[in-house]
């Protein structure tokens, strides 16, 4: 297909090569240097999208990152990206793009019926109409109708990298300001990174080939600048790289698109698709340019309507005629630049419609001299044309700019470009908390005060629009930054003369809402935010409903909240609100700017931290044995713990039942290596533990062990475990598996910040020891076969520790029990763990030793009513709630103690730990089930009296057992409660939280 709108010459494209691409299944040709948007326009394609809410036909509106309309779905699953701005997608051979959000096709979209009914869908309509509980039934269809692109369904096959960099000067933006700054700073020898989102340096100069710098075409200046930067060894230029975020202390996030612009068959396999950079810069120079503001008039959204500067870009940079017959609508001199460009490149220019009462600038004078018809004091009152602009209606404006005269004179045109002034691109500056001021002479928000040190904004981003001033300002800022970074300059201020007049863009006539022949909202729409289909009428509705703060108006109407974050709409919205409220624009103020500037792929954030690299995996010395014996694993923090060991034909329940029985009938063995272990040494170790634990440890005898509870200062249980006194000045603390690191930090915090006088030293020894617990009536007999130690209760009683050899390896043996059975916890240096484990398994065969996993451990401890911190507790449970007053010392202070006597802690209706037995013992309560007092006459609101924290089938009890936290539970023994489930109700009885061996005889074997 011929590129019938491609100009015969000019443009920064490689005409020698053609690239074939498809859009919505149709094939087209473009050239290297094209964007998807420029290539589509070269082929006369304007209609590229349907709008978000009303499904109105939409075209290409801009030529850059600000694009609100031309969002496409790129590629095919799994390599597909939704909501890609066609104006920024670099064309490659084989590119395939689809219009999104239309059905059955872009030209015929059935959902456009909503457009006829659109007066029924004002702002806030969804919130008001589809309220809970019915919202959930409407949400699906509404979200389907009002969606954007589709996320890929398959895993991302591409690789992404992350990297970190430091530099003296980071320059964001490779236009004239950024290039001048990078050159000036780079020449001093400073480490400079220059970031440009485009694939070419030059910025606005790429679209203005007539501009001269130092008597030569600006393109030559750009080329020479780029060549010189390449020779400077400390300068790095990153093209196709967007600075999307400005974080604290001059940390900036960059997204580099490394291979997206290659044809799929050409993509270098060794390169990642994209690279995320985090740059910590000594100094930051923001040279991010400015974005043109469109005018808001009736039906300003048809395909064929675009920004004036975009038309100039398509003509000059891409040699594309964006239309055959054009109308320019402007309120400032900038529109005449486009008019001159359109005329000189052969577009039939019907008229310039200028809101200004008189046009007296250098560009308008030139336009008048060239015979371009100019109507000053006129407004565009509306447009027509369904899938493409056909007519523009214009009428004279009254002196106040509030109304038009007459019915609107039609002008045939397929292109309408508008210019409403310029907005400095202050996004990054504002993300860094810089404040803005309204510049009355420029009619724009520009940077005021920096909140970050070592930051400068230069060029159009700073409201400096004349090219000569831009170069001077950028040069000076760069030298100052380099100087501050310690690079002597000796450079002189730049005074490069340019051909661009300083005041090209001034003055302007500020009319944010262009009046039409009919009242607002009647017949036609004034779109403010095209991507979210927010109209001027919506803004006025919000104000009628009482919203005044611009942040509230924004949220109520969703203006500026689409993927473009209102780059072309926010200031217009603020202007309309200001006009309506009779305030000035700065009185209304701006909304908050947040990262990212443009969207960033999730893959780039993840980098290589995916799949197995998502999180470190910790395994015990016996892990290989568990794997070889078919264990299923459970993640506990970063640890992989053996969960259960299914034998042939067993499901989880069968395996767990067998393991639980074995530990009570003969002997089971558990890998407990993951328990946290902290050695606490020093003369004050006992005093320290007394302050940390609720009970006393300073009086513990050497060789004896004690269970302890730790609280936070608010009195809530934080961790538990057994601590053993190894020597007079030495304790070994064990913690929960998941809590080990937090406990270590907690202990260090108190020692360093509050009690630096205590002589105590902490060492984490979790990974130094392999721990295996043998538990059951035959545990003593088994251990006796592998050690010389006297295991009799007299010399080795419950809650004590002995050192000796086990299977020929020096070991610490703790006689402690988490199952209620006679148990020994054997600790050996990690590297002997597997050998000792295997010895125990080998010798244990005669006792039918059974390895059991964490699930069986949970059942065994629940049969005994032992809590698990984090399961029975959730940060709101005190020792008193758990019925563990016996462990709370009355004789000493400890962390959290004073909180236990606060009135709230003593209330009778606090949730307390109880047991639950189901009426039908075969029924196992789901953990987390809410408990209620009645199973009949139930009307909301139903008081919840508690919830199930642990629940299992207990083969040793022959029925299900559960632990629960229940309001005033200890006074409810024998009471009936009900677990209300979606499909049924389970009735159960409150019991004490102890189900097996209630006298505790089995501890002694």
């Amino acid at each position: 297909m011929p590129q019938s709108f491609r100009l015969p010459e000019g443009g920064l494209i490689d005409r020698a090569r053609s690239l074939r691409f498809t859009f919505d299944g149709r094939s087209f040709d473009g050239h290297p240097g094209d964007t998807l948007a420029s290539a589509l326009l070269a082929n006369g394609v304007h209609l590229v999208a349907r709008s978000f809410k009303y499904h109105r036909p939409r075209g290409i509106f801009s030529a850059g990152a600000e694009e609100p309309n031309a969002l496409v779905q790129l590629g095919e699953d799994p390599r597909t990206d939704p909501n890609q701005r066609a104006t920024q997608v670099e064309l490659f051979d084989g590119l395939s793009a689809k219009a999104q959000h239309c059905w059955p096709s872009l030209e015929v979209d059935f959902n456009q019926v909503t457009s006829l009914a659109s007066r029924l869908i004002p702002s806030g309509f969804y919130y008001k109409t589809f309220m809970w509980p019915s919202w959930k039934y409407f949400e699906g269809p509404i979200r389907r109708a009002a969606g954007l692109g589709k996320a890929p369904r398959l895993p991302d096959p591409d690789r992404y990298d992350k990297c970190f960099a430091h530099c003296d000067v980071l320059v964001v933006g490779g236009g004239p300001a950024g290039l001048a700054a990078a050159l000036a700073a780079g020449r001093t020898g400073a480490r400079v990174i220059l970031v440009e989102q485009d694939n070419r340096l030059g910025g606005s100069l790429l679209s203005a080939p007539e501009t001269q710098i130092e008597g030569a075409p600006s393109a030559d200046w750009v080329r020479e600048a780029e060549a010189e930067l390449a020779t400077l060894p400390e300068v790095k230029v990153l093209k196709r790289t967007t600075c999307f975020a400005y974080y604290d202390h001059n940390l900036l996030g960059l997204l580099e698109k490394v291979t997206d612009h290659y044809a799929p068959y050409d993509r270098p396999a060794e390169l990642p698709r994209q690279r995320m950079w985090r740059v910590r810069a000594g100094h930051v120079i923001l040279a991010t340019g400015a974005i043109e503001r469109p005018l808001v008039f009736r039906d300003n959204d048809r395909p064929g309507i675009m920004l004036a500067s975009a038309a100039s870009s398509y003509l000059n940079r891409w040699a594309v005629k964006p239309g055959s017959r054009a109308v320019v609508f402007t309120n400032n001199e900038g529109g005449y630049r486009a008019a001159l460009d359109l005329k000189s490149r052969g577009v039939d220019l019907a008229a310039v419609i200028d809101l200004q009462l008189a046009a007296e600038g250098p560009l308008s004078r030139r336009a008048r001299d060239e015979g371009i018809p100019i109507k000053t004091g006129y407004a565009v009152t509306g447009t027509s044309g369904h899938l493409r602009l056909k007519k523009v209606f214009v009428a004279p404006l009254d002196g106040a700019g509030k109304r038009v005269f007459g019915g609107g004179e039609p002008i045939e045109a397929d292109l309408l470009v508008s210019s409403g002034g310029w907005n400095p691109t202050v996004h990054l500056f504002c993300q860094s908390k810089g404040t803005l001021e309204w510049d009355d002479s420029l009619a724009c928000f520009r940077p005021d005060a920096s909140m970050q040190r070592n930051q400068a904004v230069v060029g159009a981003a700073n409201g400096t629009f004349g090219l000569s001033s831009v170069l001077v300002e950028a040069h000076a800022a760069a030298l100052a930054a380099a100087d501050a970074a310690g690079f002597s300059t000796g450079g002189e201020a730049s005074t490069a003369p340019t051909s661009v007049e300083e005041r090209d863009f001034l003055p302007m006539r500020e009319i944010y809402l262009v009046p039409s022949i009919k009242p607002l909202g009647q017949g036609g729409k004034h779109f403010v935010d095209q991507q979210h289909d927010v109209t001027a009428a919506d803004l006025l509705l919000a104000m009628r409903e009482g919203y005044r703060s611009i942040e509230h108006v924004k949220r109520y109407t969703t203006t500026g909240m689409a993927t473009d974050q209102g780059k072309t709409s926010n200031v217009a919205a603020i202007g309309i609100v200001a006009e309506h409220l009779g305030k000035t624009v700065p009185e209304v103020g701006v909304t908050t700017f947040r990262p990212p500037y443009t969207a960033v792929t999730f893959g780039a954030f993840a980098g290589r931290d995916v799949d197995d690299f998502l999180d470190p995996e910790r395994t015990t010395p016996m892990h290989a044995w568990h794997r070889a014996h078919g264990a299923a694993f459970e993640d506990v923090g970063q640890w992989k713990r053996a969960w259960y060991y299914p034998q042939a034909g067993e499901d989880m329940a069968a395996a767990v039942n067998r393991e639980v029985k074995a530990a009570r009938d003969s002997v089971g063995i558990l890998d407990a290596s993951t328990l946290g272990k902290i050695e606490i040494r020093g003369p004050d170790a006992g005093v320290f533990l007394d302050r940390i634990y609720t009970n006393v440890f300073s009086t513990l005898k050497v060789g004896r062990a004690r269970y302890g509870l730790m609280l936070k200062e608010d009195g809530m249980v934080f961790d538990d475990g057994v601590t053993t006194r190894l020597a007079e000045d030495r304790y070994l603390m064990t913690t929960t598996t998941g809590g080990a690191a937090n406990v270590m930090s907690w202990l260090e915090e108190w020692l360093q910040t509050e009690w630096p006088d205590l002589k105590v030293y902490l060492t984490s020894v979790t990974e130094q020891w392999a721990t295996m617990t043998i538990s059951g009536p035959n545990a003593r007999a088994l251990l006796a076969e592998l050690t010389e130690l006297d295991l009799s209760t007299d010399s080795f009683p419950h809650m004590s520790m002995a050192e000796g050899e086990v299977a020929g390896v020096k070991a610490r043996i703790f006689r402690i029990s988490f199952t209620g059975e006679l148990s020994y916890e054997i600790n050996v240096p990690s590297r002997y763990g597997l050998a000792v484990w295997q010895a125990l398994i080998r010798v244990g065969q005669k006792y039918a030793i059974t390895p059991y996993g964490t699930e069986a451990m949970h059942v065994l401890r629940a049969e005994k009513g032992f809590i698990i911190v984090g399961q029975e507790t959730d940060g709101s449970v005190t020792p008193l709630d758990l019925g563990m007053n016996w462990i709370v010392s009355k004789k000493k202070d400890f962390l959290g103690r004073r909180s236990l006597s606060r009135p709230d802690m003593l209330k009778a209706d606090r949730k307390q730990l109880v047991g639950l037995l189901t009426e039908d013992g075969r029924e196992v309560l789901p953990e987390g089930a809410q408990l209620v007092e009645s199973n009949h006459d139930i009307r909301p609101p139903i008081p919840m009296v508690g919830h199930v924290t642990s629940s299992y089938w207990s083969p040793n009890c022959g029925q299900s057992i559960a632990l629960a936290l229940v309001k005033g539970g200890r006074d409810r023994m024998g009471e009936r409660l009900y677990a209300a489930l979606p499909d049924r109700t389970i009735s159960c009885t409150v019991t004490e939280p102890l189900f097996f061996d209630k006298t505790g005889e089995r501890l002694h074997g």
Partner: protein
Amino acid sequence: MLLIPCPHCGPRAEIEFSYGGEAHIARPEEPDELTDQEWSDYVFMRRNPKGVVLERWVHAHGCRRWFNAARDTVTYEILAIYPMGQNPPELPEPRYL
């Protein structure tokens, strides 16, 4: 992400640190002599100023040592770093006022 000058290791990225909340809140010597209100003020109540905040940090993924910092909650600038147990140094007036 802040760049925090650890007094022992030098400037490091914030991800290496853990936050310890407001500084200079001493644990009461005799908790039993405090009213419920006084005790809960100690446990729960913290200042949230616009401007300078004195706060605690620990270099959790470094030297694991605690220190105090003075930071401006508007600019996020770290104005001073000083050891545990010391009073804050004289600080300049915020420059945005």
